[in-house]
């Protein structure tokens, strides 16, 4: 494809960097293009209703819009032996793709000119730019036999759209030349305004006259030319100022004739829905529709999984022909190329993880024994009065052949200790439950606890053994990418690099090792995290907040008695927190460091609506956290401020100490803390491990 032989099939991650051919070749959809379920249909390019295509960075907006553009449509028409007009009629539209960043909109401000003047100039500039783009498409649509008969008519009709100095061109090429000349003249004035102190443009057409008038003029020329829309596709709208967006909103509101707008933007890049039409705001589903790409993927995990599998296959077909994978003639499932982390408690891997030593010498057993012995010298704990009691507990929880179960047993003892229960009785009950599970492997409360806490327990065992925690498997990577295809491509890019560096042959032979996958995941997390450093002061505030949040989640993950399992999420009331902390929470969401958990919940004991958020799972390898979210920790106002306000370093240290004390033996502050600062939190968070 395009004569390229990259050393990594995932090296190209941005749609902007792809050629038209690559956009076409790499496009994948979840359903046929004419099916209402397809991504392509969701863009509603042939619908007159304007559409905002929203999504976070890397969610696939640009790829979708470029795929729908006329440059790519033409390629498909050729493939299907359709003439351009017949093709346009079949598709129902022609896509006129424009990148807002290409307009260099930053030029249209300051330089001693009023905001109103700049807005008029920008409006005219956009008019000329989109007019030129529409005429270029018309030029392509008109095949020779009809071109001669109607070209002059189109030019005459277009010249009537001008308020002043109508172009006298006789053919479309000359008309485009004339409009480009006017745009260059405007460029010259705009670029030199800072030096000349003057801005005296010759605005020859009113707002919307060319954008909506040219398609109408074209279709009025002959009945053969109708039957489809001109869809202006404005990508990266976030690059426009609020005033400029207001102008675009006005075009959305005033849309007329056979033309519409399809607007791509970052989810939080829409600064306003206001228009210049008497201050009216555009209303969703009234003036425009909205497609939220990553939300669509996150709502439907199965769809997203299918999509990314197709996407990876397509990459391999195009960029890695040496791969024996590929939809046809492949004997392996895509996911089989990825080594999966071990999760079965009876896997001998866990005996190796504790270096094969007998139960009493294992770190988790030593930790429980030492904690109990320590407490004995300070008066003991319920059910533990002497060394024999400790020894009895240690014998009860030991599982020599299944260290992961043994580890769970120690956690259950710590949990009972935190709740003030009798540990001797708990140990007997744990032993009975464990034995029943070992013999039947059946479902039940023990199995449930294992499933809930497995990720945290394994993470603790890895840390005890000074092993690197593993991330891997296509499913886990898909989950980590949070509905952003580019995030998945980045994970695979880094993993592929690591695998080849370590002498593996990804997608050719063997499987990609967990080691390479884990290093790839960490490199992708670092890349994601370090990108934020470039975002200046705002970026710094986000990083501080995210570091703090992750630090707390780590305390929980590696605690004797984690208050929540696989904790990477939190909930907080919309009314809680200082202005600064609320602002930083929003910023972290804007930049996708935090992801909103779908379906905001009511607090368990109140009617108050709260927001639920989680760390973007792309980031979690940085701190060895879980990718499968289970628990959600409600944050108190004090915790919210300590995390999200960078100036609250001291308060944050207190929160940390509080979390550590509540979750680790001897659990001294567990009850006191509940009175001090998050009364409701502690009571709810101390899961009753056996309270089904």
């Amino acid at each position, binding site marked *: 494809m395009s004569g390229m032989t990259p050393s990594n099939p995932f090296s190209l991650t941005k749609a902007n960097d792809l050629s038209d051919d690559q956009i076409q070749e790499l496009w994948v959809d979840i359903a046929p293009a004419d099916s209402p379920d397809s991504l392509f249909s969701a863009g509603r390019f042939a619908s007159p209703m304007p559409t905002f295509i929203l999504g976070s960075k890397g969610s696939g907006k640009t790829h979708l819009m470029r795929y729908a553009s006329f440059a790519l449509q033409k390629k498909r028409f050729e493939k299907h032996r359709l003439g351009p007009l017949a093709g346009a009629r079949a598709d129902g539209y022609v896509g006129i793709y424009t990148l807002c960043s290409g307009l260099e909109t930053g030029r249209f401000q300051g330089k001693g000119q009023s905001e109103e003047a700049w807005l008029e100039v920008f409006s005219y500039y956009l008019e000329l730019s989109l007019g030129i783009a529409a005429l270029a498409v018309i030029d392509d649509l008109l095949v020779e036999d009809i071109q001669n008969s109607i070209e002059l008519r189109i030019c005459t009709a277009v010249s009537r759209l001008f308020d002043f100095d109508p172009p006298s061109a006789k053919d479309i090429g000359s008309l485009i030349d004339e409009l480009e000349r006017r745009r260059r003249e405007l460029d010259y004035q705009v670029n030199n305004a800072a030096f000349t102190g003057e801005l005296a443009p010759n605005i020859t057409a009113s707002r919307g006259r060319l954008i909506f008038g040219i398609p109408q003029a074209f279709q009025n020329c002959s009945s053969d030319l109708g039957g489809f829309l001109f869809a202006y596709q404005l990508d990266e709208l976030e690059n426009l100022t609020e005033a400029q967006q207001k102008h675009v909103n006005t075009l959305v509101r005033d849309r007329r004739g056979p033309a519409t707008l399809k607007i791509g933007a970052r989810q939080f890049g829409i600064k306003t829905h206001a228009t210049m039409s008497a201050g009216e705001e555009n209303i969703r589903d009234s003036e425009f529709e909205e497609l939220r790409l990553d939300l669509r993927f996150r709502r439907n995990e199965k769809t997203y999984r299918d999509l990314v599998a197709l996407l990876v296959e397509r990459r391999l077909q195009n960029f890695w022909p040496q791969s024996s994978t590929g939809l046809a003639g492949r004997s392996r499932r895509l996911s089989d190329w990825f080594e999966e982390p071990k999760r079965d408690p009876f896997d001998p891997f866990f005996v190796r993880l504790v270096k094969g030593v007998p139960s009493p010498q294992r770190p988790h057993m030593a930790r429980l024994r030492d904690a109990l012995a320590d407490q004995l010298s300070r008066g003991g704990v319920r059910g533990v009065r002497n060394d024999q009691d400790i020894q009895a507990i240690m014998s009860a929880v030991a599982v020599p052949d299944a260290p992961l179960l043994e580890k769970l047993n120690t956690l259950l003892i710590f949990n009972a200790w935190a709740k003030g229960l009798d540990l001797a009785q708990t140990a007997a009950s744990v032993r009975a439950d464990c034995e029943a599970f070992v013999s039947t492997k059946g479902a039940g409360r023990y199995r449930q606890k294992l499933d809930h806490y497995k990720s945290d327990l394994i993470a603790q065992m890895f840390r005890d053994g000074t*092993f690197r925690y*593993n991330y891997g498997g296509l499913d886990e990577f898909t989950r980590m990418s949070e509905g952003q295809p580019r995030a998945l491509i980045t994970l695979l890019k880094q993993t592929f690099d690591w695998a080849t*560096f*370590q002498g593996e042959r990804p997608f050719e032979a063997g499987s990609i090792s967990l*080691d390479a996958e884990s290093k790839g995941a960490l490199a992708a997390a670092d890349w994601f995290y370090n990108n934020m450093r470039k975002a200046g002061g705002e970026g710094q505030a986000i990083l501080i907040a995210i570091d703090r949040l992750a630090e707390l989640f780590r305390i929980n993950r590696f605690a004797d008695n984690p208050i929540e399992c696989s904790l990477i999420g939190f909930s907080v009331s919309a009314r809680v927190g200082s202005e600064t902390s609320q602002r930083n929470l929003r910023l972290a969401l804007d930049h996708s460091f935090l992801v909103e958990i779908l379906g905001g919940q009511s607090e368990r004991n109140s009617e108050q609506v709260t927001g639920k958020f989680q760390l973007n799972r792309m980031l979690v390898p940085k701190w060895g956290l879980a990718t499968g979210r289970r628990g959600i920790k409600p944050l108190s106002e004090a915790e919210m401020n300590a995390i999200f306000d960078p100036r609250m370093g001291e308060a944050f240290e207190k929160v940390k100490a509080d979390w550590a004390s509540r979750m680790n033996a001897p659990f001294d502050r567990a009850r006191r803390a509940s009175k001090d600062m998050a009364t409701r939190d502690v009571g709810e968070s101390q899961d009753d491990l056996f309270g089904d």
Partner: protein
Amino acid sequence: MRNGPHHDPITDELQSKIKTLHSSIWERRADWPDVLDWLSQFEEHDDPSADEQLQALRLLSSFMYFGVNEIRALLRSLYRDTFRPQVAKEVRTGLLPSTALDLVGPLVEAELRRTRFVSLGNPSESSALLLYYFRQENALPKNLFLHGSDIFDLSAVGSHGGLKVQNPDITRYVFIDDLCGSGHQAREYSERVVKPLKSISSDVKTYYYPLFGLSDGIEHLRTHSAFDEVYPVVELDPTFRAFAADSRLYVEPKIATLRLPTEATCRRYGSELVPAHPLGWEDGQLYIGFAHNTPDNSLPIFWCDHTGSRPWRPIFRRYPKVSW
């Protein structure tokens, strides 16, 4: 071995650095299996400060490799920033201060046409390859290049006359080399070629321009050779010696204590590989390599390819000068 799931933050960091180097400036010359194979020749130890493999890995992560692109860029710099300005300076010194700039240009061009660039040593050696790149990068005509033996006209030697220069119109000879270590080899060359040249043609100017030069070696040549000008494109001061007291590899207090144990390790293996020069030719202690070869001034643990009593697999192989 360092290839398990064992999590050692230092090894991870070094491995990550080597991966970046491997896929960028090392031109994919040392992937991880190669590195592991090389490391396996050192002893592993639980105590990080005594772990030879960790010492070697750390040294390797500092290895300075100059690929073809970098060498070509240095050769452009040699001509553009070193030699040409030197000629211009000399031309201007011979003119009145009031001479207009537009007169200087043509004079410099005329002088350049009377210059010859000369490779050191045998035509099959690296210096000849450097001259090939040098000519391409600076768009110079072929006739400006010579081999050392072509400087002289030997036709009359032994009959009625003595040694003569081949082309008496030549005013400048430029000798180009990749690395000047101790300076002893260049000095030897100066005795063999430059001194006789100056004795029969005292007005010609001679220049020795290595791409890299250790400060001591450069100073040695300036004081003990017949070259008029000695100037490296990149001068390596003594801190570039791996185990110098002020070595730039061990500046961080956390790793400063590793300098002496690492030196002892390199010396121990080096003594078996190159007994006369365990830390590189004339105690070079360098960690530098080029796309075309690794100089013997670098530590032998990097380049030595031994099949004898002490087999050794190098990580940046040196292609030795074979004697028949």
